[in-house]
Every structure is written in C-alpha cells, then in structure tokens.
C-alpha cells in the first residue's frame, strides 16, 4: 500500500509548485489587487507589475494608478513604486504583517495618459447651487413657498379656535346652573317675608329660624356654584391667553423658516463663495467615501446589523478570518510606513505607524504625520492625525498649510464658468470622519487671485470685483454623509459681492420678503379673529358673576341680622311687659 517513490514524487511536486509560485504569484497578486481596488473605488485601476521576492519575503508594486471616478482623465491616487516586507510566520498563519512599507512618488490628482473607465458614478452632490438660476432671481411664488414650508401658524390657529369653542360651551353650561335674576328676587322675597313677619312665640321663632336657615343653605350652595364658575372662568382666560401667545410665536418662527427656505435671511442670495467653490469641495470630500468603503467590512456595527436594517449590499470577502477572541495578529498590519508624496512641486515624506483595521488587537490607533517646508510651490505644510476602527471608524485630521501656489483651475460649468489663473492659498482646519459622517471646519485665505471669465455680464462683473480684493477669506464647513455632504462656504466678502452684483435683484427680493410677511400676517390675523369677542364674553361673564355674588352676600348677612334683632326686640318687649305686670 506504500508507494516507494512517494517522497520523490512529492518533492518534485513541491519544487515545481515553488517555481510556479515564483513565476506566477506576482501576476496573480496583481489581478487580485486590481479586482479588489476597482470594487472599492468603482473606477479603473492600473498596476504595471507586481513582483514577489522570496528571501526575505517581500512584494514590490510598480506604478499603480487609481482613476478618479468623478474625473476619469485624472487619477485620484497614483504612485511609482511600493515595497512591502512581510513577516513569514504571521503570513503562514494567514495574517499579513508588514514590517516596513515604502511608497515612492505618491501623487494625488495626477493626469492620466488615457481616460480611465468608471464603473460606479460617484453620488450626486446634495443641494448644489446653480449660479444661473440665482442670477435670474428665479424665486418661488410666495403661496407655493408657504405651502411647502409646513407652517405651524394654521395648526396653532385651529387649536386656538377649538379651545375657544370648548371653553365657550363649558362656560355656557356653568351659566345655566347659576341662579337667575328671577331666582334671586324669589330668595329676596322669601327672606323679606320671613324677617318682616311677626314672631308670636318661641315655637314660631324656631320654625322661622329653621326656614331662614334653609334659605341660607340654598344661598350658600348657589354661592359655591358661583365660586366654581369664577375658577373656571380664570382657567379659561389663562388657557386662551396661552394659546394666543403660542399662535404669535408660531407665526414668528414660520417667518424665520420661510426666510431660510427662500434663502433671503441675510439680505442676499446664497453666498457667492458657495456658488463658486461648493462643487469643487464637494468632489474632494466625496473621495473620502472610498476610504469608508474599504474599511466598512471591519466596522463591528456593520457585522452585527440585522438583515432588515442593511440598506446597502454587504461587501463579501472571499475568505474571511473568523473573529477569534484573541487573534495573534490583525488580518493585516503595517507596522511602519514611509510614503514619498509629490506635492507642491517637490517631495514630502509622510510617516505612518500601525496601519490596520483591527486597532483593538494592537491597542493603538493608526497615526500619520507630515511636516514639509520650503517646497517650490508650497511654503509650509503640516498635517497630523489618527485613525481607528473600534466600535466605529473614527478619523481625525488637523492641517496647517501656508503659501500654496494654485495651479490654473476652472470653477463652475458652461456659461457660468470662471477661470482662476493664479493664486496663493493659506489654510488651516480640522476634519473628523465617524463612519460615513463627516464634520469638517476649515479656514482658507486666497491671496493674489487672478480670475477671468468669458461668461455673461454678471460673471464678468464678478471677476472684476474678485480681482480687486487683496485677499478672499473663506470659511468652509462640511457636515453629513460623505457621499452627500452638506457644504457651507461663506466669506466676509459675500455680502459685498452680492450687493454689487445683485443690485437689481435685491429690490425683487425685498418685495418678495414683504409679500411673505404680509401672507403670514394675514394667517395670524385670521387665527386671532375671534379673540376680541371671546375676551368681551369672558369679561361680561366675570362681571355678571361678581354682581350675583355680591347680591347673595348682601342677602345672607343683612337680612339674617334683621330677623335676629326683631326676635330679640320682641323677646325684650315681652320680658319688659312681664316685669311691669309683676
């Protein structure tokens, strides 16, 4: 049963296999890398050559280019050479631990020789501002805007109306229970009859006192009803006054909301800087999505999502490593990397430590830093940050950039395009990326800008104004999803430029603003229409109740006192008569 030549056959097989690996591993890794990267970024990826070195175990990649999906004539990222030395034992266990990684000639946004293929169009940008529309002052109709704004005023007015009706009904019911003038006159007649009648003897006194007490009790019950009615009246007054206040507040809030919707709050249209640079910044931010897509399978939340909640197809890995409770190494881990970056017409070196997607295993975050000075196109650039995937992917980046000479660039589209021939940029800022949510703040100062335009008269006027500025300060804030970032670019010059450019348009906006205010005021007046009537009714009710109350008080105190006096006098007379007789 044992094959005598078995070992020999096996050794020959292994030798042939090693030879095949040596020859074909490079191309196989190259194909694998291209497939994975294209899947992640959605655009063509080119790699010239991948070579495997067996002793020491290392991989070398020559000339990698990743097409920018939004701009296929350029690469989003490219490099000349990369060399990674792998640790053998972790590699045998199936973990890719790289001791040293070096990347030379890394470039961001370099032009490609040929257009790259795009497999997935990047997400549509959020609410981009269309300069043409704004310059035409194509404002929505006031009625349409009010209908679209989901206003609170009509709801509050309706609530006030319903409250008033309910309170009126309650007060009416209370009033029906109160003693009428006829009832009170009846009480008064009965009391008068009792008090003015002659009391013949002690029994008569007791009977009349009892009758008087009965009348007193009835009057007290009426008095209680009056007190309750007064209390109800006070509550009604408070509730109605509160509802009126709410209606007024809602109307004020609605006006602010409508102003915001119509983009007229600051007395002008959307910031000119937003119009010019919103798209450019949006495209740059959207590129961060590829980072998120790459690390997404490693974020614990994604792994534990119930199937119903997953909105996007989960990326499937060909052969995943099981989540061992204490894995000896992360799936991949680059302990130290040096990247030679072509920037500002020269070279800069980025140092990175602990690149992995399983930071909990190495108990450290990925750190990166860059500090360069005096490059031909850049005075200074300092960047540092960290990146960690624990429960969420969290990235923090801080930067300070001084004196970057801008390359000629094209802003806007078609007739609304502006060309920026030269300019000098200073910038500082910070960025936080938590999963696919971005929060970024930056301040940018554009100096010595030279704009030109062949567009319409507004754009030519704009370029003239921009070129007159010593510096153009910009504040850029980005929030929301990376794929659909909400970008706000504001400049202290916006108002000035807006006023100069849109003189004619501003009159239209002022008229529109006034129309909006009138519409909302009319809604408020409709809501408050019955308020005077209700107030008069409540005042009348209050006065009626007070009158009835005082009449009852009068009857209870004055008439009873007379009855007692009369009895006392009679008793006194009787006693006097008896003493005279004796």
């Amino acid at each position: 049963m044992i094959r005598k030549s078995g070992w020999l056959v096996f050794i020959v097989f292994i030798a042939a296999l090693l030879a095949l690996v040596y020859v074909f591993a490079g191309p196989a890794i190259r194909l694998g890398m291209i497939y994975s990267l294209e899947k992640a970024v959605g655009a063509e990826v080119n790699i010239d050559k991948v070579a495997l070195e067996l002793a020491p175990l290392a991989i070398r990649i020559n000339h990698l280019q990743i097409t920018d999906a939004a701009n296929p004539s350029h690469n989003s990222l490219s490099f000349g050479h990369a060399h990674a030395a792998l640790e053998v034992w972790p590699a045998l266990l199936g973990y890719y631990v790289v001791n040293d990684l070096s990347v030379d000639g890394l470039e961001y946004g370099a032009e490609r020789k040929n257009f790259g293929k795009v497999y997935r169009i990047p997400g549509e940008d959020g609410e981009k501002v269309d300069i043409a529309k704004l310059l035409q002052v194509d404002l929505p109709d006031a009625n349409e805007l009010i209908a679209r704004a989901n206003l609170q005023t009509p709801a509050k007015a309706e609530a006030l109306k319903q409250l008033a009706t309910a309170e009126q009904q309650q007060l009416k019911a209370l009033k029906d229970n109160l003693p009428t003038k006829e009832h009170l006159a009846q009480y008064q007649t009965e009391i008068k009859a009792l008090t003015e009648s002659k009391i013949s003897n002690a029994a008569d006194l007791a009977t009349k006192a009892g009758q008087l007490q009965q009348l007193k009790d009835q009057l007290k019950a009426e008095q209680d009803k009056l007190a309750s009615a007064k209390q109800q009246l006070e509550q009604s007054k408070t509730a109605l006054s509160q509802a009126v206040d709410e209606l007024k507040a809602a109307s004020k809030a609605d006006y602010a909301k409508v102003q915001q919707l119509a983009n007229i709050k600051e007395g002008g249209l959307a910031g000119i800087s937003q119009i010019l640079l919103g798209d450019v910044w949006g495209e740059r931010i959207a590129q961060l999505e590829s980072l998120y897509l790459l690390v997404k399978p490693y974020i614990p939340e994604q792994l534990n999502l119930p199937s119903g909640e997953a909105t996007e197809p989960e990326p499937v890995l060909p052969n995943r490593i099981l989540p061992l409770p204490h894995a000896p190494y992360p799936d991949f881990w680059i302990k130290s990397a040096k990247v030679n970056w072509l920037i500002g017409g020269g070279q800069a070196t980025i140092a990175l430590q602990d690149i992995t997607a399983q930071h909990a295993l190495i108990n450290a975050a990925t750190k990166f830093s860059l500090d360069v000075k005096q490059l031909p196109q850049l005075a200074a650039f300092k960047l540092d940050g960290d990146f960690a995937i624990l429960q969420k992917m969290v990235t923090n980046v801080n930067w300070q950039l001084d004196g970057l000479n801008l390359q000629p660039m094209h802003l806007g589209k078609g007739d609304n395009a502006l060309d920026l021939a030269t300019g000098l940029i200073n910038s500082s800022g910070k960025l936080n990326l938590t999963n696919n949510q971005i929060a970024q703040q930056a301040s940018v100062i554009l100096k010595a800008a030279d704009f030109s335009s062949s567009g319409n008269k507004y754009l030519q006027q704009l370029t003239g104004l921009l070129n007159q500025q010593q510096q153009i300060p910009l504040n850029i804030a980005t929030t929301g999803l990376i794929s659909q970032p909400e970008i706000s670019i504001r400049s202290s010059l916006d108002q000035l430029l807006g006023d100069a450019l849109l003189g004619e348009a501003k009159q239209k906006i002022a008229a529109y603003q006034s129309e909006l205010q009138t519409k909302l005021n009319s809604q408020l007046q409709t809501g408050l229409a019955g308020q005077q009537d209700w107030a008069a009714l409540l005042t009348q009710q209050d006065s009626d109740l007070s009158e009835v109350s005082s009449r009852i008080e009068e009857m209870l105190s004055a008439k009873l006192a007379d009855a007692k006096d009369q009895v006392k006098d009679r008793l006194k007379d009787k006693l006097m008569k008896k003493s005279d007789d004796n």
Partner: protein
Amino acid sequence: MLTLLAKVLKVLNSQASPWQIGFAIALGLFAGILPFGLLTLIIILVVCLLTINLTTFIVTWGLSSGLMLLFASPLERLTWQYAQNDGLLNFLANTESLQLLHLHHTLTLGAFVLGVVLLLPVAWLGKTLVQQYRSHIMTSVEKWKLTQMLKASKLFALYEKLN
C-alpha cells in the same frame, strides 16, 4: 479532452484496486474544495505516499476546483454563520497549528469539515461504482456497436497507445 477520457477509461479498465480509485476520487474532491494551502499539501503527500491512483486524483481535483467557483461563496457564508461559536473560536485561537492549517479562515474551515464528512462515503461510493462498472458494464460495453465503432476511432488508438 479525448486524452483525458482515454486516461479515465484506462484507469477504470486497469487492474487498480477499486479502493485505490475510490480514495483517489474522495481525496481529489477534498483537495479540490479546499483553498490551496498547507492542508492541500498534506493531502498531496498522503496521495503520493499511498498507492492511490494519481490520474483519478488529479482529474477529480481539477473538476472539484472548477465546481468551487460556484459553491465557494455559499459555503463561505454558511461557515461564517455556523462558526460563530465561542468554544470553537477559543479552540482555534488557542491552537496555533490549526491556524497554520488556516482553519480559522471561513472557507478553509467549511471546506475541511465538508471534505472530512464526505471522505469515507465518497471513497466507498467510488469503490462500489468501479466494482459495478467492472462486473456489469465493462463486458457489455465491449459488445456495443458504438464501442466497436469507437475501437476503430482515434480514441481507441490513443487508448491502445497508452496501454
């Protein structure tokens, strides 16, 4: 293709024991469903050291590797789902030799379990089928007109040449 068919026919009609052919099919299937790695090398060593039919092993290995292009993804997902067991994960984490065999990789683990489960049944089935072929089919096939025609063809010439 004709050469391959001729080789298979030659093996079936040879004096090789049905068990040798049965185990060659089972181990070829095992090696084919596993992603290439140390486990595959161990299977190859076993095949080389024991008198298992090499031709049948290589043919089955190639065919089942092709089938895995279709079945790798469902098997990987199934393993990921059922391997989330604390005991198993702890065992794999504590045993470095199992990690050396890449049994902490989903597809490798799934294919290994499937291969072990199928090994003996497939070997027995292979042996039985070879026996059935030799006792009932081989002699009848020889008498068929089609066989007679084939004997006069290029295939038969190849078969004879290999003999």
